């Protein structure tokens, strides 16, 4: 199975861009399937269904959505195979700026909204810095100068990535993205690794503690002054 993992902040235009790209993929004769991961709710499956691509939703509920996506990759690949797909596209929820769900051999795509301001590329962390492709959306809403600065900022964070300026409404740039999808390679999960380790999240909050006072917390904890320690047995 070839695998494309698409990350990006909520509402950045992941689905809009993918709809156009997957239509091109279809025209090029490659069969694809999409899995949308979100936390509580999504209606992206309806949007993908409209273009006739097999679609599955995974809601992570109480689990971190990126961890959930990584943990369920095998099921997703099996499901895509059952649907005769040769290309699996995973659209993540993209909430945490510390996780990057890209695996080494998948194609890692980061979708980033140009209206979010030129400091955003500096803030979003590994899902931009480890991406193969950065797709900039909503450039139609800002000046050319702002677009050029945004682009430069992305290259500061990830000098190696290929930048595609796309428009989720008109589909401009999405054919180019589809060409990159066509170049993606087969992934077998046996030996597959993440590009970037997920952040530590082992503490009492993770298992349901709701009291805020410090004295109730155990685990790997980091103070605002930068001091990190392990509290517990």
């Amino acid at each position, binding site marked *: 199975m070839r695998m494309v993992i698409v990350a990006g902040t909520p509402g950045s235009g992941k689905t809009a861009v993918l709809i156009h790209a997957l239509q091109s993929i279809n025209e090029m004769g490659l069969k694809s399937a999409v899995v949308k991961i979100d936390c509580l709710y999504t209606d992206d499956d309806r949007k993908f269904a409209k273009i006739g691509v097999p679609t599955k939703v995974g809601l992570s509920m109480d689990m971190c959505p990126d961890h959930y996506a990584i943990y369920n990759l095998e099921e997703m690949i099996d499901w895509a195979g059952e649907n005769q797909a040769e290309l699996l596209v995973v659209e993540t929820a993209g909430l945490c700026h510390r996780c990057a769900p890209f695996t080494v051999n998948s194609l890692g795509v980061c979708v980033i909204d140009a209206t979010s301001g030129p400091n955003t590329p500096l803030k979003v962390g590994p899902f931009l810095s480890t991406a193969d492709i950065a797709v900039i959306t909503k450039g139609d809403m800002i000046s*050319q*100068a*702002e677009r050029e*600065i945004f*682009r430069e900022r992305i290259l500061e964070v990830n000098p190696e990535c290929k930048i595609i*300026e796309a428009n989720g409404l008109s*589909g*401009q740039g999405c054919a180019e993205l589809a060409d990159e999808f066509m170049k993606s390679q087969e992934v077998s999960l046996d030996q597959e690794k993440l590009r970037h380790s997920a952040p530590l999240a082992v503490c009492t909050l993770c298992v349901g503690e709701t009291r805020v006072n410090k004295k109730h917390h155990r685990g790997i904890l980091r103070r605002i002054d930068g001091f990190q320690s392990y509290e517990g047995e």
Partner: protein
Amino acid sequence: MIEEITIIGGFDKQENPEPVKKVIIKKGEIFGVVGPTGSGKSSLIGDIEQLSQEDTFSKRKILVNGEEPSYEDRTNPRKKMVAQLSQNMNFLADMTVGDFLSLHAKCRGAHSKCVNAVIELANTLTGEPIKKEHDLTILSGGQSRALMVADVAIISNSPIVLIDELENAGIRKHDALKALAGHGKIVMVVTHDPVLALMTDKRIVMKNGGMQAIVGTNDKEKDLSKKLNKIDGLMLSLRDKVRNGEVIDNVDVKI
């Protein structure tokens, strides 16, 4: 060196082939783009800005000197052939005017001395002065527009210049056009303003997302353009008087 660009027609909103199949714009020419709101004027110059290769919904193709531009030419801002003043009236970037202009100058490979020149030029086009330490997002529509014009004129110094509705936001449009349309450039001006439209050499008429016709500005129109300029000058001076709190007691309408 860019001698000419070619627009190869695509399809209108109903997917019919555009009546105008091919437009060639040569160095030194100013083209207007006219048509009702929603007729596809901004989309047309958007296609040129991206040097589209049948990859937008209009399926137009843009050639430079008769050839397809390279990927590098289309995307690298340092090599960028096109400077565009879009229709947007406000900046969204959260930074000061000075930081913004320095960053943009860096992107375009322009000298950092440009920053002051841009602010100076912008302040000749608009009312209340813009300062380096102002936040971009607090600028008024007119101030933002003036700054965008000056930025395009000085920092984005490209051989192809695209201008979308310069007349908006009440800046001095003649001065703005003069600053933008330097000598030997290829210039396209989207406009609803007859004064600006008649200042161009030819105009592309848009309808329903497609290029309908090309109208050359004839000698009579060029004469009329001079008259319209006078009327416009009169309106401008009246505007300035009203703005400055003066009372208008007489208007000389004999032109």
